[in-house]
């Protein structure tokens, strides 16, 4: 075991892993975090904590991830390249790892221009960083963990390793589609051990991409978890189909919401999610699912039940031993 996280053990044990997302609050209280966390407890194996998603200021991913550790849950801290240079990023990793955060998803991050949307003013005039890109983040974290070196070359202090399972995101159906498998290969070559994809609705197209992934043997080198964004309405699906890069929604899925509003649309959304998860499970190379119920965490229990993902497997509580062994 590289870091002994629950996620790592489940992947190693060949389990079909389930993760979900928890969006930190736009305020300085842990109440919302604690409340959302309870919807996820026992229903998923690990919880992604988003890092100022869509460039909107929220409580930092590291601090929320630490809170989840305190609550006895397993976080996957997300880290974007947008807001921090390599100094800040590595420092954040040290802090989070010291507090028991054992997984990190390295992503480039939405451009800050996204922060102005709907009613939000955001910070479109902020300066972005992108000192490194997601692939370089992956590489840097692997070097810190495995070679105990910082990106610049200095060693980490003796006996104080930065133990984290390293993940990356993948947009399988983003343009240019033929190059997406190459980009996944780069992320895995850089050291990504698990992959969470952008939301997939078009399972046929995803299946074709996965065939190429399997042909290259990439599925054996990293655990690929298909991302599913839980749909709430036809409007949301149409919006994503039109406006979100790399997300295409087949007509027949949108049509299922015809004439459905409120609770009926919500029920349809959960049914669609469960079906998509079941279809994804059948695809060779898919090792898990990442459920994105955006500001809808309370529906996770219902979704995982409908998708037949319960009960979640247990891991023996020998994390401490593993840590001791590796130290």
């Amino acid at each position, binding site marked *: 075991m590289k870091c002994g996280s629950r996620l790592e053990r489940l992947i190693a044990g060949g389990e079909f892993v389930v993760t979900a997302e928890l969006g930190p609050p736009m305020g300085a209280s842990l109440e919302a975090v604690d409340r959302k966390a309870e919807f996820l407890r026992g229903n998923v194996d690990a919880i992604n904590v988003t890092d100022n998603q869509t460039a909107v200021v929220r409580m930092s991913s590291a601090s929320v991830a630490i809170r989840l550790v305190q609550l006895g849950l397993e976080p996957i801290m997300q880290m974007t390249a947008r807001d921090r240079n390599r100094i800040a990023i590595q420092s954040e990793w040290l802090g989070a790892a010291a507090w028991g955060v054992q997984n990190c998803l390295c992503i480039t991050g939405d*451009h800050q*221009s996204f922060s102005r949307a709907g009613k939000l003013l955001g910070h479109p005039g902020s300066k*972005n960083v992108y000192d490194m890109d997601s692939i*370089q983040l992956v590489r840097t974290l692997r070097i810190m963990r495995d070679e105990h070196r910082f990106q610049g070359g200095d060693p980490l202090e003796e006996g104080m390793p930065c133990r984290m399972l390293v993940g990356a995101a993948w947009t399988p159906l*983003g343009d*240019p589609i033929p190059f997406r498998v190459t980009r996944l290969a*780069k992320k895995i070559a*850089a050291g990504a051990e698990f992959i969470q994809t952008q939301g997939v609705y078009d399972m046929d197209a995803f299946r074709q991409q996965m065939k190429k992934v399997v042909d290259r043997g990439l599925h054996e080198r990293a655990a690929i978890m298909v991302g599913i964004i839980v749909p709430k309405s036809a409007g949301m699906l149409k919006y994503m189909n039109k406006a979100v*890069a790399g997300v295409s929604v087949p007509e027949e899925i949108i049509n299922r919401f015809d004439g459905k509003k409120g609770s009926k649309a919500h029920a349809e959304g959960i049914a669609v999610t469960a079906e998509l998860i079941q279809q994804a499970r059948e695809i060779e190379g898919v090792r898990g699912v990442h459920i994105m119920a955006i500001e809808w965490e309370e529906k996770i229990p219902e979704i995982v039940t409908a998708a037949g993902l319960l009960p979640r497997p247990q891991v023996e509580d020998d994390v401490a031993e593993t840590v001791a062994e590796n130290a």
Partner: protein
Amino acid sequence: MIIAQRKKFEELLEMVRPYRRVLVLGCGGCVTVCNAGGEKEAGLLATELRLAARTHGLDLEVKTETITRQCDPEFVEAITTPLAEIDAILSTACGVGVNFLTERITDRRITVLPALNTSFYGATESHGEWSEKCAGCGNCVLHLTGGLCPVGRCAKTLSNGPCGGSNNGKCEINTDADCIWAAIVERMEELGRLEELERIEEPRDWSTARHGGPRKTVREDLKI
């Protein structure tokens, strides 16, 4: 070339308000080519200022002159307008010209003001349309990316692009912006070099860019 755009007239009028005798100084370099601050634009701005002075009842005298370049000492030294007769220079050069004039102007009483917003290093797409091509990062990677720059032309300066925001060849930030990484992939494929993009580019050394502080180059063989 350096691409610039003229500041809003209101801003310029406020800028020159404290001065009575202003020289609008045009530049015959890049800003002439991008129609932002050459002889024609300097003349137009001077006329506008004179008209505005009349409609606003300002005591403002505006002259104009254009020199070959505002970034070389020999041309700055050759300004023909008597400096004693002006209080401020409103330069229609890029920021380089404004800085250089400030440092080189012999009459230290004279304030140099910027008439333009200096925007980027770009090229003319068609008459009246310019776009950014280079960021002047000091460490060129164009040989690795099929001649198209990910530093100057990717919104996220990605070394290992494209990110997930590439859509039909356009960037996620807006549909007017091309995704340069999509173009790089296409170009490398055209060149039969696509497999080179499998290589992972290491984190860049940004010290050659502005992040390393103000830059300077010296060619000893050219110096006396």
